[in-house]
């Protein structure tokens, strides 16, 4: 859906001719959407000017970084944030980094490791924006999305620049809540529509201590990278348990004792995906590992600040696992596998092999909530996958779910997905049916309400009528309706 010449020219005047394109030929690369145009802003001023033009001409817009996916209504203006790729500041003393949207997590992480610092890597992968809001493998120790974004520079849907948190009253980025305006509850919506209206143009990311080396000693060639040696005071183990209850008990104690660097509630199919280099190998390794585990499990990375600290953490871990009748998966004790998992789960953040390699697509139901409660729901969702597995419509992962505790406690992230071949329409329909059915069940049985259900009159009243407040909020900040819900800045 082409823009008129005048409107195109108005955008072109902002970014220059090279940085706007509405040629239909590029659209398949942009989610095959019928976009009004793709625009590549280089700074906040350009984003602001673009957004103001969108308001003037009543055009919807959406900003996207590396861009896994998203929903793109016909004619929408696509802000490809590629040119905004600077690390503005790494403040070691106050432990935050300020980044533009197209700095990917792998880049920021590498810079931070040199400085003895780290960030919450998102499960979406190191290939995504470092300022991405979301959850990841480090959530147990670093918390999740809304805790890790500090001050933010935000271009509102009307094109105003709002400096949130401490940035609102100073030039400092250290806090998301003030002194200055805090809109944390609004800009970090975990309920539908799940995306903040407008564009984040810079964000401070909270940093954490990194007990590991300045860089990992990688050796080998792609796709067989591993480490020449396991860094001092680091260890990876996978434990399986006789029951979900036992697993949950151990997970909670590990959180309470604050001994893990990372606790990732992998199922063994995800371990297999991460340590193998092809689909054929993955199938074989999954079958082998699945026989070696006694039930559900998780992967733990221990990282000591000193040999003594490391020894202490290992002993506490051993005690907790032993008390819960846990069993270490021998294959992961092999230093070569340990090295691969350290790379995959700290640096890569795992996701591509786990999710896309098998069939090319996956549909997921992610949940934040009381971990033991969401696990109960996930067991049912896993069982509901079994008929699809039997029919060969989805990849056999044992019907498993995954997840982890957040902030060392009961709060947690639980997720379950189906991997399938999207060209198989029967499989696609079956997976979508499963997703809808299990989301509906989750709400009806009062486990949670998730984004898939959208904002409905049914969900809203169960959640303090939040949907009415959200509607008022969006009407107030987006009177022209140019910043649609759905999708995410990835």
């Amino acid at each position, binding site marked *: 859906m082409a823009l008129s010449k005048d409107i195109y020219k108005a955008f072109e005047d902002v970014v220059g001719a090279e940085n706007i394109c509405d040629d239909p030929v590029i659209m*398949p690369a942009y989610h095959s959407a019928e976009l009004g145009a793709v625009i590549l802003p280089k700074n906040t001023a350009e984003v602001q000017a673009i957004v103001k033009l969108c308001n003037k001409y009543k055009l919807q817009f959406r900003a996207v970084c590396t861009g896994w996916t998203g929903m793109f209504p016909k004619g929408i203006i696509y802000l490809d944030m590629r040119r905004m790729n600077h690390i503005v500041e790494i403040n070691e003393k106050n432990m935050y980094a300020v980044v533009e949207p197209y700095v990917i997590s792998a*880049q920021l992480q590498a810079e931070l490791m040199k400085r003895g610092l780290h960030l919450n890597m998102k499960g979406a992968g190191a290939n995504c924006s470092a300022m991405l809001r979301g959850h990841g493998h480090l959530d147990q120790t670093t918390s999740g999305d809304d805790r890790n974004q500090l001050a933010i520079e935000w271009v509102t849907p009307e094109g105003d620049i709002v400096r949130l948190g401490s940035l609102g009253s100073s030039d400092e980025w250290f806090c998301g809540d003030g002194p200055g305006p805090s809109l944390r509850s609004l800009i970090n919506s975990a309920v539908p529509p799940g995306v903040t209206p407008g564009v984040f143009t810079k964000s401070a990311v909270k940093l954490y201590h990194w007990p590991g080396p300045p860089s990992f000693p990688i050796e080998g060639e792609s796709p067989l990278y591993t480490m020449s040696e396991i860094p001092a005071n680091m260890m990876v183990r996978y434990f399986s348990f006789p029951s979900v209850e036992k697993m949950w008990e151990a997970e909670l104690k590990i959180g309470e004792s604050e001994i893990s660097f990372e606790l990732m509630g992998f199922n063994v199919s995800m371990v297999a995906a991460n340590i193998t280099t092809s689909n054929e190998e993955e199938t074989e390794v999954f079958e082998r590992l699945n026989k070696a585990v006694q039930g559900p499990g998780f992967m733990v990375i221990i990282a000591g600040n000193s040999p003594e600290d490391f020894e202490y953490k290992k002993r506490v871990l051993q005690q907790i696992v032993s008390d819960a009748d846990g069993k270490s998966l021998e294959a992961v004790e092999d230093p070569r596998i340990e090295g691969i998992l350290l790379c995959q789960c700290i*640096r890569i953040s795992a996701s*591509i092999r786990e999710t896309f*390699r098998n069939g090319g697509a996956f549909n997921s139901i992610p949940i934040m909530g009381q971990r033991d409660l969401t696990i109960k729901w996930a067991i049912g969702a896993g069982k509901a996958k079994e008929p699809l597995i039997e029919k060969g419509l989805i990849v056999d992962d044992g019907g498993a779910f995954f997840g982890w505790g957040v902030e060392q406690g009961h709060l947690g992230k639980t997720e379950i997905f189906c991997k399938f071949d999207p060209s198989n329409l029967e499989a696609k329909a079956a997976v979508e049916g499963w997703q809808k059915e299990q989301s509906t069940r989750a709400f009806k049985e009062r486990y949670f309400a998730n984004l898939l259900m959208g904002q409905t009159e049914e969900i809203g009243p169960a959640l303090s009528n939040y949907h009415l407040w959200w509607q008022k909020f969006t009407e107030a900040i987006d009177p022209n309706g140019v910043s649609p819900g759905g999708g995410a800045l990835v």
Partner: protein
Amino acid sequence: MALEDYRGDMEMCCRCSACKFIPMQRVKGLQYANVCPSIAKYNYHAYSGGGRLNIAAAMLKNGFNYTDKLLDIVYNCQMCGACGVSCNYAMDMEVLEPINEFRLKCVEDGQTNPALEKVINSLRKQGTMITGARGKRGDWAAGLNLKDATKEKVDVLYHAGCLTSYDKDMQKLAKATVKILQKAGVNFGIAGNAETCCGGRAYQMGYKEDFLNQAKKNMAMIKKAGIKTVVTGCADGYQAFKVLYDKYDLKGDLEVLHISEYIDKLIKDGKLKPRKKVDISVTYHDPCRLGRLGEPWIHWEGKKVPGDRFVFDPPKVYRRGTHGVYEPPRDVLKSIPGIKLTEMTRIKEYSWCCGAGGGVNESNPGFAKWTAQERIEEAGSTGAEAIVTACPWCEKNFSETIKESGGSLKVYDIVELVEKAI
């Protein structure tokens, strides 16, 4: 295989953008994380490996609509294959092959680039990719009294290649090679005026038939002369003889070695001893077609197994860029007394391209130099005095870019340093 045969691979693209960057665990910081020159320069996702697959898949589905923008996307790609290496770290799918097939289809459909047409015309008329080439191909060897491999029995045929043969600034590489081979006592010869273009660069530009013509001419000459081993001085020549000829079942049992591999072998066999000190700090640039694209071709034919996974019967072994020639040139450099080798961030299978491949050198010299400049800066960041490569096209592009930008980095082909050391 045709573009249609890669439909499944193209549809596997999950748009993760891994194809834009070096493998994630190899990222060392904000700088030098990009791996694809095309997306790095032109920014639109359409210029990335994944974007190219998305477009090709859409055109397979909806029909081919050739526009100026499409051809701009198609031809502004060095076909360096880095996108595929980064993708194939995690995914089982072909990336460069469908991109290549798309370009072949463009040429087949007459959707060519005028600058590349000119080069191909030169190939058709003069048997060389060097437009306006003067003199004869074998002139560089005048007075050297080398054996004519087409007439005399030799153990090794040295294939100098187009650029080294015709470009007066590059002929030094052929002469250095001759000196090295003579010093090692190798029974070698050249084809002289009978040598013809390997066809590799024509293939990169999308001209499959012209490539096949060249390949057949070369293999006919080689078979007639009874040659068992070819040593190429150029990475493009190496990939053509070793990989592409094999892909099209033309190679037979011909042994193909790049000069850096051959020198490494001569040194390790004790036939060549670099004794003279060459005091210089260097960094090594892996040419794409010696490195990731130089790994052997794997013949495979099979069908997708129906079901939930992208797997085949028989299982498909992917070429992920890992079996290229990486260590021999490094070992040669390390064997030269006085040389201090420091590595860049982007090396081996995830090396940054010099910019000269895929016809970009001819169709968009500005982009070729932009790409080279990025590499020159990366080389400079190591503190090295010189960047060493193993391909005349890389050397030429680097040298011209440094000359234009006024930089001080020196550029050498590996044979120049070996020549100094013997």
